[in-house]
């Protein structure tokens, strides 16, 4: 809803400046940048966590913690871009499962891993193409589409591998996926993430491609009228999401040396949670990759802290994650509210919405004519 769109605190992550109607309600300058907020939260968690268990503030925690979060972290990268364009992709976890299933099946069929892995990634990209096609060419709402493909891809995974779980992967590879850089504390798989993170950050924040993504998210029609290839770019993002999700599937498969159709069920929501927590507006146009990476780290730290704390049952992770997600958006809004209550500017909400209505609300459905 538009007035929500204009009040998500995520302005913090918005290069370069907050829109006027937001300016009319609060100037982001006076509110700490979103990233700073998360860093603060991380610090808090680190302190509390160390209090809960002396095991917490250790390299081992980082190592194992990154294993817990690696898939989420990887998928969060393309998901950030997708959400900034104002779309969403809920099918990523299913693509991850499909990739794992395909990997197992092909391995059974006796193909070499060196060949299987690229195949899986291509498969993921193809899944992305299908999503992208439905969203950009047919013009269907991405939420509905990807809820559909969420079922479809997971179903295909089951069809491919069914009840089996393939485990006979060569130790050389599983060790690699499970190992750390020369036995130290830095997991090999994290290297993939760091490299991808840098690439995505540059692409989003310093290239015409990234600029176009923000423009599309803020006003798709105007972007189209400016000669930006909105459809092609959106499509490419879904392809990226699919490919990276498939990559995450490979990582997970090797990491657990198990290929099964039902791995990573529900992961998509964790990823979305991370992205939103990272300060990306669900309505698109705002957010930064850095914030998201911090958010992933924050989630990982919280999970680790709760797991290490004695006698804290792991469903508390859910409760905390959920609460945090809501509070992270709610808190700043309340600050704003308080400030409004003081100034009589309160009434200036409506026009903000009125203008947003023409831009931020659902794009006119004719647009794909």
């Amino acid at each position, binding site marked *: *809803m*538009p*007035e*929500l*769109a204009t*009040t*998500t605190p995520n302005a913090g992550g918005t290069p370069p400046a907050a829109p006027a109607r937001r300016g009319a309600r609060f100037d982001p300058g006076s509110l700490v940048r979103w990233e700073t907020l998360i860093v603060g939260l991380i610090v808090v968690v680190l302190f509390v966590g160390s209090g809960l268990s002396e095991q917490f503030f250790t390299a081992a925690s980082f190592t194992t913690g990154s294993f817990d979060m690696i898939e989420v972290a990887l998928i969060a990268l393309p998901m950030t871009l997708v959400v900034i364009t104002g779309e969403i992709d809920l099918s990523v976890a299913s693509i991850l499962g499909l990739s794992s299933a395909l990997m197992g099946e092909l391995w059974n069929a006796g193909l070499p891993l060196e060949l299987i892995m690229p195949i899986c990634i291509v498969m993921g990209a193809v899944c992305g193409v299908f999503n992208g096609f*439905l969203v950009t060419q*047919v*013009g*269907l*709402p991405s*939420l*509905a*589409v990807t*809820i*559909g*493909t*969420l*079922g*479809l*891809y*997971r*179903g*295909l995974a*089951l*069809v491919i591998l*069914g009840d089996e779980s393939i485990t006979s992967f060569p130790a050389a590879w599983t060790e690699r996926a499970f190992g750390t850089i020369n036995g130290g504390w830095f997991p090999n798989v994290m290297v993939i993430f760091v490299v991808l993170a840098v690439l995505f950050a540059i692409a989003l924040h310093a290239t015409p491609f990234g600029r176009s993504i923000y423009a599309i998210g803020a006003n798709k029609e105007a972007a189209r009228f400016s000669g930006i290839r909105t459809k092609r770019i959106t499509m490419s993002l879904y392809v990226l999401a699919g490919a990276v999700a498939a990559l995450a599937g490979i990582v997970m498969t090797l990491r657990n040396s198990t290929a099964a159709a039902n791995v990573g069920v*529900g992961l998509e*929501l964790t990823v*979305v*949670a991370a992205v*939103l927590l990272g300060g990306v507006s*669900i*309505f698109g146009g705002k957010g930064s990759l850095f914030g998201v990476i911090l958010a992933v780290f924050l989630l990982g730290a919280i999970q680790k802290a709760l797991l290490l704390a004695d006698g804290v*049952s792991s*469903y*508390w992770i*859910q*409760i905390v*994650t*959920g*609460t*945090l*997600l*809501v509070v992270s*958006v*709610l808190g700043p*809004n309340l600050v704003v*509210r308080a400030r409004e209550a003081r100034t009589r500017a309160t009434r200036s909400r*409506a026009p903000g*919405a*009125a203008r*947003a*209505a023409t831009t931020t*609300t*659902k794009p006119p*459905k*004719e647009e794909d*004519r």
Partner: protein
Amino acid sequence: MSTADVAIDRRDAGERARRLSELVFRMRELGIVIALLALIAVTAILEPRFIEWDSLKDLARNASIIAIIAAGQTLVILTRNIDLSVGSVLGLAAFFCGDMLSNHNMPIIVAIALCILLGAMCGVVNGVLTTFGRVPALVVTLGTMYVFRGIAFVYTDGRQINAETLPDSFLNIGTGTLIGIPTIALIAFVVVLIVGLYLSNYRSGRELYAIGSNDAAAKLAGIRVDRRVVGAFVASGALAGLGGALYAARFGTVDATAGTGYELTVISAAVVGGVAINGGVGSVYGAAIGAVLLGCITSSLIVLRIDSFWQQAAVGALLIAAIAFDRLVGLRLDAALRQRSARRA
């Protein structure tokens, strides 16, 4: 030509457009009804027992709970919001209901009423956070989905409700029949009917469409947007609560994980039923039929002895097919409307 002719020309142009648009809007439900009948027909041809009365009753029972929750979900989606927390609310309510009945032998009616209340309270949380907290509904309900489920875990603490400890009269709601029709299906029917009438015939109902269609304009039209949206969430929560009670009645066994993943099924049902995910369009009847269709798919795959692995894929594919169909119809309509506006001078 004189203004008079123009006026006339315009009038019958308007006439045409009206008939067309009406037809199209009926088609929204029409398409899915056809799909449903086709599915049943095909299955019945291959396996006649599929349309035996008993088996039909089961189909109805299977769809009922989803249909009820989908009715609530429709209200929310119409306002261009979404409620992902229904599955968790259902789980919470289901166990609560079982707990009240088996451990505190509370009167059935009271227990069910309390379930609805519990759900409604969850809805209030969602609604207030969305409107007054100005947090996007997707974010809020994604959060509360986790939180409510977590609370359910804390509350059940590993316990389980068993059919044995539940009063038969309660269990009969889930499995028994009234005047030959499954009780639970009757309840669903009544709920859907009420919501449907409300949406089409009452100001506040129409206002939900208005909000979903353009909520800034809704504000300027003096609609109490926040109040309406909260209302929608409360209804969704309450119906999820009712669904929980019925879940307990139907399955007899309830633990903390009851209703996990229902949210996606419910939303699928609504969307398959022609409720536009970005608000303003759709009917609760469509959503209900959508629920029946999803239920039928699972059952017919089983009856046709098709590997149940295919089921999930089929549902997903159907969902996409449904919205794609809807979209194409929509494009037709737009084109037609464009034609007539072009003719106006």
